[in-house]
């Protein structure tokens, strides 16, 4: 087993070396693209922001003359396809939801980390604005200590109910509750759809709810609400007990802001080097993305129209991603 790991690590180093070398070679010979008419396969996951990123990238690649295919894929399951080369690029991998999967895939040498998208994922506990009347002191986290009964349900009584993400998107809610001594119980929602269903249902009834939410996403735009302000995250909070207000526990702080990265099939570096450079250069900010998501999900405009509009208005931006011919 040890030997196998060692060999695998060596393989990894080789892959890194080869990638660096290829990168250099790619830069030298990037003069001509498209290199081939083999289609680049981009994955479409099932949330709007990802589809926007993907369609923008796909549009740019088409402008460069590449063949582009869009494949509908599950967020988690797509890694299997990215490893084998059945899929080429996935545009949004979120730190909190798929960090482990991505690290495992990249360590295997078959998937490349294509760098950050520029968007920062804000992920934290969220509540609707109307709760500030019922739980005075919010958004400060200490207010929650006295409001457990406001958020309680028959199954969590006397504790408050906190609706977390799926078990696998580790927001460390249980640890945080313990470290900050909050009278709350975590209920995990299995999927984003279930989480949103419950938030929307509570919002319609002006009922109490405290839940895991993130942005860029349509929900914080559509529902008026606020993030709970926990003690700010700093280096050491997650692994050094003496850090922060609770000297005996880790996780006594809020969530760090997370990256959103692009990943790609490692074998594609040789096939479409110029395209890979452009994908690495892809960059978009939270505000811009938020506006596009809002236009699609809140105002109900067709996705492609919104993407085309952005492409027309920001031609300089995306032209700058394309390597010089």
């Amino acid at each position, binding site marked *: 087993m040890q030997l196998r790991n060692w060999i695998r690590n060596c393989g990894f180093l080789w892959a890194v070396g080869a990638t660096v070398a290829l990168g250099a070679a790619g830069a030298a010979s990037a003069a001509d693209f498209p290199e081939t008419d083999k289609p680049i396969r981009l994955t479409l996951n099932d949330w709007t922001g990802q589809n926007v990123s993907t369609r923008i990238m796909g549009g740019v690649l088409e402008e460069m003359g590449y063949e582009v295919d869009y494949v509908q894929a599950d967020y*988690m399951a797509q890694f299997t396809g990215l490893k*084998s080369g059945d899929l080429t690029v996935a545009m949004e991998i979120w730190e909190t939801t798929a960090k482990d999967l991505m690290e495992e895939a990249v360590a295997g040498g078959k998937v490349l980390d294509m760098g950050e998208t520029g968007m920062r994922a804000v992920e934290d506990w969220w509540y609707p604005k109307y709760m500030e009347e019922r739980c005075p002191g919010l958004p400060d986290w200490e207010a929650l200590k006295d409001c457990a009964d406001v958020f309680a349900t028959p199954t969590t009584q006397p504790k408050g109910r906190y609706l977390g993400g799926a078990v696998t998107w580790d927001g460390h809610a249980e640890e945080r509750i313990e470290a900050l001594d909050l009278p709350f119980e975590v209920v995990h929602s*299995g999927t984003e759809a279930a989480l949103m269903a*419950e938030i929307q249902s509570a919002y319609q009834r002006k009922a109490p709810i405290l839940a895991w939410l993130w942005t860029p996403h349509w929900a914080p735009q559509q529902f008026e609400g606020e993030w709970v302000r926990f003690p700010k995250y700093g280096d050491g909070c997650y692994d050094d007990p003496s850090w922060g207000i609770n000297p005996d526990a880790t996780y006594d702080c809020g969530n760090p802001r997370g990256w959103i990265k692009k990943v790609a099939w490692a074998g594609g570096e040789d096939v479409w080097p110029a395209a890979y450079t452009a994908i690495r250069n892809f960059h978009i900010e939270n505000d811009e993305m938020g506006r596009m998501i809002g236009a699609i999900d809140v105002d109900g405009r067709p996705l492609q129209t919104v993407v085309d509009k952005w492409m027309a208005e920001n031609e300089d931006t995306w032209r700058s991603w394309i390597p010089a011919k």
Partner: protein
Amino acid sequence: MNEAVAERTGAGGGLSRTAVTVAAVVLALFVADRLAGWLPWVGVYPGSWELPVSDWVSGVMEWLLQDAAIGGIGFRSVVRSLATLLSVPLEAGTLVLAKGFELPFGGGMTLPALSWLGVAAALVLFGARVGGRRLATLLFFTVAYLAFFGQWQSAMTTIASILVAVPVGLVLGLLLGLAAYRHPAFERVLRPVLDLMQTVPIFAYLVPVLVLFGFGPVAAVVATVIYAMPPMARVTIVALRGVSEEILEFARMSGCTRRQLTWRVLVPAARQGLMVGVNQVIMLSLNMVIIASMIGAGGLGYDVLRALRRLQIGDGLEAGVAITLIAIATERLGRALTDGTRSRARLPRRHFGLLLAAVVALPTIAGVFWSPLAGVPDALTVSTAEYWGRLVAWVNTELYGPLNGAKSVLLVYVLIPFKRALVALPWTGVVAALAVLSHRLGGWRLAAGVTALALFIAVTGNWEKAMITVYLCGISVAIAALIGIPLGIWSAASDRVHRVTTTVVDTLQTLPSFVYLIPVVMLFQVGDFSAMVAIVLYALAPAVRYTDHGIRGVPAETIEAARMCGCTRGQIRWRVQLPLALPEIMLGLNQTIMMALSMLVITALVGTRDLGQEVYIALTRADIGAGLVAGLCVAFIAMIADRLIGAWVARRRAALGLA
């Protein structure tokens, strides 16, 4: 030990036998519970005893997927070439029906996809030809719905993948069934494999399928075939056995070769029975549409998922209803094709194929010049999505209070106590009780099998999750039976009720469960209760259907005889019909359990903490071993239930003289 006590005290038949069994089961649980006080391992399976089965499975799968080779050719590349083979008809279907395709000579020449109007008209005509006015009407409404609710494009993508998955499933099932019919030894191997294919949740083997077949529509078709094919194999075995010996004897005497005997005599003679399998394969394939869309199949399933993710419940419902309509229309079409006795519309018999081709081709060619014929124009489409959204919002604000009250009562007084009790049961006691029960019902062989299955769950460290699974499914099945059996009795008594329940049951079974899962979560919040409601809705169907069928199957002479004896209507129902239909009703219950277990993976999406969630977590971590092992545990629970009920039914049938 406990069994021995039970055996010694056991006496006589009938009621006392049942009483002894119950007493032995209770005794086993009680003794284990007492013992657990001194010896903790009797109560809770110690973590240090768990075998790393999932690591072993992962290792084997890794080898199979990466390194295995036969004669220098990698297993994986063999499968990949199979995938390429499958992708040809699939691509062709999608291009012809949905996308159109670019001619390879350059110059941007494209062949258009078939015109919607042409396909729609041809389908209605074909329906009229094989099934008369009724079928034509059904098909007319189906295609009209698909076109005018803006579902055409997605529907054609879905239909293209179904058109590949269903024939592959049928042929494979037929061949496996034939082989099993010929060689009893093969059948003994095949049976448990079919059981596993139907009960191991699809998420458990999704990753290996993706690695082997590549990411995309082909993998989706393969997963669909794995799930939908088993009923065909089963039905084939039964149908072939049902072919009467005289027919075969006659064929042999007239000098048929073995091949002629099979394809000219045996299979045609079993056609009626085989159609049941065709029906099942179609229905189950359409059940898979949602999951298939997660791995690149696209189509209606993807529309449902995307709409619900954005909480556009109306849009999700419209796409879901499209799937239901396709399922029902296809099923009726299949039935009409085999049932030659129906009335048929007066259409020219000769050159009918030519007529259909013309009906499809003309609008397609015209569509090149006038685009409304090529794709459904946006101006013609309507949507009711907005109203559904408003309805859900209204229900949510107005009815939430009373519904939530009822939910709290059920949760606090029934669900939670039952869950605690089950989880607290000592595992040794449960295994012993199962052993006793299976021995009483089916002898030593059954007892050995059931015990082994239960031990596997404990040894792999899944005991507690399994108990939560049993709790969730147990409660749901009980409620489904409480609602479904009376409904079945009612619909057996009246043809009008029968028609209504059949429609409702068909819809519930083919409407993707995700469509009603999200509104259920809005009303009942994330948690076990929502999961339970969804499971009950899905698993209700067989309880109604089998009860109805069972009671209708009681021979008319028996009822006549009861009436002659002066039985009142109530007496006929309670003393004659129900007891005679009981074996059939229990089979329905068995199916209800199977369907409840198959819903677990879906309810994992709303935050349950059972084996379904384990499978789902393993999928999100791409942990092949953990996923397969948890999936096997689900399958084993299903098999234990199936074998116990099966043994009981056999015993009961024998007692009633029905065997």
